[in-house]
Every structure is written in C-alpha cells, then in structure tokens.
C-alpha cells in the first residue's frame, strides 16, 4: 500500500465522520440575529437623520471620512494608514486600485467577458498588439479587439520586431511522470506571431528575446524549488542561449517566482529579480551585463518584493512590480530610472486586509502605455469567486443563494498610460507583453 492510497483511505474515513456542534449553530443564529438588529438600528438612524436635517448628516460623513483607518501589518501591528488615493478614479478611467472592493474590480469597466462590446469605446487608444496568457498563448490588439489563440502554453514574449514569439509549455508526459515539483517539465518554444512554425528550443521558464532576435534569455528553477523555510522562497538562475537552443550559458541567480528576465533595448543588459538583502523573501531588481562582468542592483527604494522588470523603449527607465514596504498585500507598479533615481509609483496604494496585486508590467513599443496584470486576492489566497446570474463577480458570503463558486478569481489585464493615468480593463488574462 502506498502513502498515496493510505492518505486517500484515511481522508475518506475522516470525511465519513459526522460531528455534532449544537453550541456553535446556536451561536451563529444568535450572532446573525444580533447583526440584523444592528443593521435595523443603523437604517433607523439614517432615516431619522435624513428626516432631521441634510446638513448635519453631511457633517457626520465628513467627520467619518477623517477617521484614519488602520491596517494590520504582516506582524499583526496596527498602524495608521494614509488617506486613500482618490485622484485616479475619475470618469471611466477608474483604476482597479481605487476600487473600494477587490472582488468587484473587473466591474469597474463593466468588462466581464460577456459584456465586452459595451466598453469598446472606452478602451485605450493607440496601436500595438499584446500577447498574453489565458489558458494558452493569445494575441490581441491593444484595445482588446481581434484576439486569437496562437498556441498551448503561457508567458509569451514577442521579439522586438514582433515577428517571432517565445513562450513556455509544460511537457505533459514529463509532468505525469514526475511526482516531485514539475518545474523541470517546462519547455521554451518559439513560433511566428501567427502561431505557425512552433518549435521547442530548450528547457526553462520565462523566455525573453534579445533585441536582435538572435538570442533568448530565460530562467530555470533550482532542482529543489521549495526549501523548508517557505519565507526564503524557491531558487533559480537566469541563462542565455541562442534562439535555436544552442550555447546555453549561466548568467545569474534569480528568484523564479518574480523573475521574468528582460533584455534592454540596446542589447547590453538583462534585468531580472533576485533575492536582496532586505530580509527573508525579499527580492530586488538587478541588471547584469550579458557579455560582460558587470552586475548592478537597482537601489530603487520600493518594497521588499520587487519583480517583473520591463525596460522602457528608450532604455532609460524600468517598470517593475513591488510591495509597498513590507506590506505584501499591496503590490503595485513602479517606475525607476535606469540609474536607480526618480522612483515613483504608478498605481494607487492599497490598505485593505486582502492582497491586491498589480504585476508584470510591459511597456508599449512607443513608450506611451504600460500593460499589467491585476490580481485580486481570489487567485492569491486560494479563495474562489462567484458569478451571479448576470455573470457579474460577487464577493463574500458562505456560498450565497444563486451564486456558485466557479474557481479561482481571474486575473485581468489592464493598460494605463505610462504616467499611471487612465487605466483601462482590457481582458481576462495575465502576463501581458506589448509588441509592435
């Protein structure tokens, strides 16, 4: 008998047990009744206030607005938080970060898959295509139109001229054989930008074309991606190879979860994420010379969890994601100059109790826009989301009526101007990569 079958049998035995919990059920009933009474009291109060006078009521709200909310930091310390940014939530350019609730962010643009045509006019202007992942490698125009699936795989990276695409595919046979973590089953493939001429060129993750299209940088996971101390995270290395898979060369150590190596437009440097000395699990943005010895850390001063660098087309700036300080619940998009100066955050800050992540920025070829992935806490915390009958995402509740869980919350692709203004929801998916 194997451990696997013992585990299944023992789990079944436990599941077959029935537990009795009269005390708890009574407690919940009382709690629900008390909550209803409190809600009724609040409603009465509001009605009384409305009848009383409109002016005093507005003062009440003003005062309420001044009460500084608190957040519970990673170590359980209550700290006052700054006022929530409001400036970005203007008009239809509502930024997901400015939404009061994560779970409904995709509604901001009313752009759930079933309603996409309604928001066509609200989309970002400007050309270019975006390659992205969504149960396969897809391409679309930057405004979300004319999308089509190109291949089975993920993490597409178009060449600088946009004519070839590198991507990652899991070798299913290897994945089935392997009982241990299957990161060694990841393969790098290349194809034309219409999905034709697909070829496997090597083993690895997160491919990135060199500007001349002759080489590919990529990452490989360490043989043991899960050390005992989960806070230190997995290990990996950045490599470079010729576009046909020959001449694989080790370049630098990296943090595979946040890496996505990216070639600078002048072809001299590769930016990537690697463990920093900021503390356990902390990563920073580094650049390393491809054909030389130089390696620099961008002392950018953002948070402890930086990753996903993307060069601006002129090579003078790098966009990346990072946590705000040690607050891993607030992952946003930052931009910093190539020399580490002028750090600025493009997406609004977030002080909620749930993780909110804006990840994997990608600069458009004309430098005017940045695409990124918005990841609400559904996917992050293993929670599920529900859709109601109108296909809108619902939050909270213990499986409310008419709303069945339908899997991990989706990640969504947004495009904003390069200064962080006018973010627009484009489509469900992740790992966007802009292309001519």
């Amino acid at each position, binding site marked *: 008998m194997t451990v696997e079958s*013992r585990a299944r049998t023992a789990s079944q035995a436990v599941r077959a047990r029935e537990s009795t919990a009269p005390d708890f059920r009574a407690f919940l009933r009382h709690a629900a009744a008390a909550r209803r009474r409190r809600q009724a009291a609040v409603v009465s109060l509001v009605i009384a206030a409305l009848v009383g006078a409109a002016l005093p009521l507005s003062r009440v709200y003003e005062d309420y607005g001044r009460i500084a909310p608190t957040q519970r930091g990673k170590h359980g310390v209550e700290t006052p938080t700054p006022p929530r940014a409001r400036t970005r939530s203007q008009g239809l350019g509502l930024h997901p970060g400015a939404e009061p609730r994560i779970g409904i962010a995709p509604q901001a643009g009313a752009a759930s898959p079933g309603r996409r045509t309604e928001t066509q006019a609200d989309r970002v202007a400007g050309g270019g295509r975006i390659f992205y992942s969504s149960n396969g490698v897809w391409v679309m125009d930057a405004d979300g139109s004319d999308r089509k699936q190109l291949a089975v795989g993920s993490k597409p990276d178009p060449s600088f001229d946009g004519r070839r695409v590198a991507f990652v595919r899991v070798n299913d046979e290897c994945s089935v054989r392997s009982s241990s973590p299957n990161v060694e089953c990841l393969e790098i493939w290349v194809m034309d930008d219409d999905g034709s001429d697909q070829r496997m060129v090597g083993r690895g993750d997160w491919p990135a074309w060199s500007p001349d299209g002759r080489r590919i940088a990529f990452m490989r996971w360490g043989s043991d991606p899960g050390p005992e101390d989960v806070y230190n995270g997995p290990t990996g290395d950045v490599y470079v190879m010729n576009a046909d898979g020959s001449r694989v060369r080790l370049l630098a150590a990296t943090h595979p979860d946040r890496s996505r190596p990216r070639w600078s437009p002048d072809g001299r440097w590769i930016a990537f994420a690697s463990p920093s000395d900021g503390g356990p699990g902390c990563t920073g943005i580094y650049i390393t010379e491809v054909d030389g010895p130089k390696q620099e850390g961008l002392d950018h001063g953002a948070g402890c969890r930086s990753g996903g660098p993307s060069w601006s087309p002129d090579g003078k700036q790098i966009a990346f994601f990072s946590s705000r300080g040690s607050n891993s619940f607030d992952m946003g998009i930052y931009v910093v100059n190539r020399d580490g100066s002028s750090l600025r955050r493009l997406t609004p800050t977030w002080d909620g109790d749930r993780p909110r992540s804006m990840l994997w920025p990608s600069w458009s070829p004309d430098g005017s826009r940045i695409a990124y992935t918005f990841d609400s806490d559904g996917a992050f915390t293993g929670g599920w989301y529900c859709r109601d009958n109108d296909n809108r995402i619902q939050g909270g509740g213990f499986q409310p009526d008419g709303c069945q869980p339908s899997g991990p919350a989706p990640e969504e692709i947004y495009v904003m101007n390069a200064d962080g203004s006018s973010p627009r929801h484009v489509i469900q998916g992740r790992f966007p990569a802009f292309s001519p």
Partner: protein
Amino acid sequence: MREFEPVVRLAYVLCGNWSTAEDIAQDGFVIAHRKWARIADYDKPEAWVRRVVCDLAVSVIRRRVVEAKALVRLARRQRPSEEPLAAADEDFWAAVRRLPRRQAQVVALYYLEDLSIGNIAGLMECAEGTVKAHLHKARTNLAALLGEEGDA
C-alpha cells in the same frame, strides 16, 4: 454553516482530538465572526477560516488552551464521546501530526480537503512550487514513518 464540519475534520487530522478539533473550528469561526466586517468581502471567507484553523491546530500553545476548554466541557458532559477511527487510519493521521507543521498542513489540505496545489498555495500564501515541495517531502517522510512505499 455547512462549512463547519469540514473545518472540524481539518482541525481533527492536525490536532488528533475531536473535542479539541471542534473547539478549534469554533474558535476559527468566532474569530471570523468578530472580524466579519473585514472578511465578509473576501471572495471565499471559508479559505480564510481554514487558514486560521490550520494555524490554530498546529500551534501547540493555542491548542493547549482549547484542549483545556474542551476538557472543561467534557467534564460537564455536554458532548457525547467520539469513537476512534480504524487503527490504520488513526496511525496515518498520527504520522501526519509528527511531520513539520507546514508539511502536515499541506497533507491535510491536499488529501482531506481535496484542494488543488494552486489553492493550497494561495491559502498558505506561498508559491505553488513550495507547496509541491512540502507535499513531496511529506510523502517521503510519511513513507518512512509508516513503513510504506513512498512515491519518490
């Protein structure tokens, strides 16, 4: 409400005592209730409760506190006594409880709760690769502890 029993089972396999497990689960839900205003908007509050219960069940100090409460309640005869599982199954979960706490949590969530690697990674707030590594090591350790054939 329907979530309570699965959470009790999860607590049981991690702490090894039904009375304690019910108290741990109850504590988890009470904490959830207290923080309801904050967690009600979660896409899946149950996941949050599971994470709390996982931590409660493997934390020795907290477990001692709820065990003490459970003993008091048993002394007042508020609960019927529970029948143990079959010896082989009891041995398996006893072995799980001897694993490092993260490995034990992953085994409970993977086999008992039937959660996917991705969902466990989200719930434990770590990478999927980390969950896979924990699961792999847990299987190896369990094979050694139980004298079974492992999967490595």
